[in-house]
C-alpha cells in the first residue's frame, strides 16, 4: 500500500486526492474536516492545534496499516494541521482508494473516527471571552 502521512502548518486536500488517485482503483472516498465558525451558539475566532508529533505520526501509521489489513485499501493519505486555523480552513484531510467503494467508505470513516480517539493532537478553541481546550473536561 502507498501511504502519505503528514502533520504540517498547511495541508492541501487536492494533494491528498491526487496521491491516492490511480488508474488501478475506481473509487476514492475523502473526509475533509474544517474549522466551524461556532460551537454551541458561541462565535469561534480561531483554533490552535498542538501535537506530540513523533507519536502522532506513529498512530497515524497504525491507522493506515489497519485500513490495509481490514479493507484492502490500495492507497491512503492522512494529513493533519498544527498551529493556528481560522473558520473555514481545512484541519484534516483523509483520502482512501480501495477496489470496492463500500470498503473505501468504511475505511475512511474508520480513519477519522480512530484519529480522533488515538492520535495525540489537541485543539484550543478561542472565543471573544476566552479559550478552552476542546473535550478536556467531562
Amino acid at each position, binding site marked *: 500500500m502507498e501511504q502519505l502521512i503528514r502533520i504540517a502548518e498547511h495541508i492541501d486536500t487536492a494533494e491528498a486526492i491526487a496521491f491516492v488517485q490511480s488508474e488501478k482503483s475506481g473509487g476514492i472516498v475523502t473526509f475533509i*474536516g474544517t474549522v466551524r465558525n461556532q460551537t454551541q451558539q458561541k462565535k469561534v475566532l480561531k483554533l490552535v*492545534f*498542538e*501535537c*506530540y508529533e*513523533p*507519536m*502522532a505520526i*506513529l498512530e497515524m501509521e497504525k491507522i493506515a496499516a489497519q485500513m490495509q489489513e481490514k479493507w484492502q485499501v490500495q492507497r491512503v493519505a492522512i494529513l*493533519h494541521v498544527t498551529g493556528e486555523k481560522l473558520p473555514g480552513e481545512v*484541519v*484534516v484531510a483523509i483520502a482512501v482508494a480501495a477496489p470496492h467503494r463500500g470498503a473505501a467508505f468504511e475505511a475512511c470513516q474508520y480513519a*477519522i473516527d480512530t*484519529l*480522533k*480517539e*488515538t*492520535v*495525540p*493532537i*489537541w*485543539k*484550543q478553541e478561542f472565543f471573544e471571552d476566552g479559550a478552552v*481546550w*476542546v*473535550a*478536556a*473536561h*467531562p
Partner: protein
Amino acid sequence: MRVLLFGIMKDIVAAKTLTIEAELPTVGDLKRWLKQEYPAVQNLKAVMIAVNKTYAADETILSPEDEIAIIPPLSGG
C-alpha cells in the same frame, strides 16, 4: 524522571516539561502522583501516559531512559 506535557496539561503545570524527583515505579504510580500534586488533573475526562510514543497500561514499569508523555483528552480532527 522528566515527562513531556501537552494541551491542557501545559496550562495545569504551567510548563512544557516536568521533572519529578519522587520514586514512581509504574505508569499507575505516575498517574496517582499527578492527581495528588495537581488536583486539576482529577477534573479531566481522562489522562493517559505514553511511554516511548506508545500508550502504556498502568502496570508498565518506568525506567530512566524512557520518553514519557502525559496525554490529556484528545481533540484532533
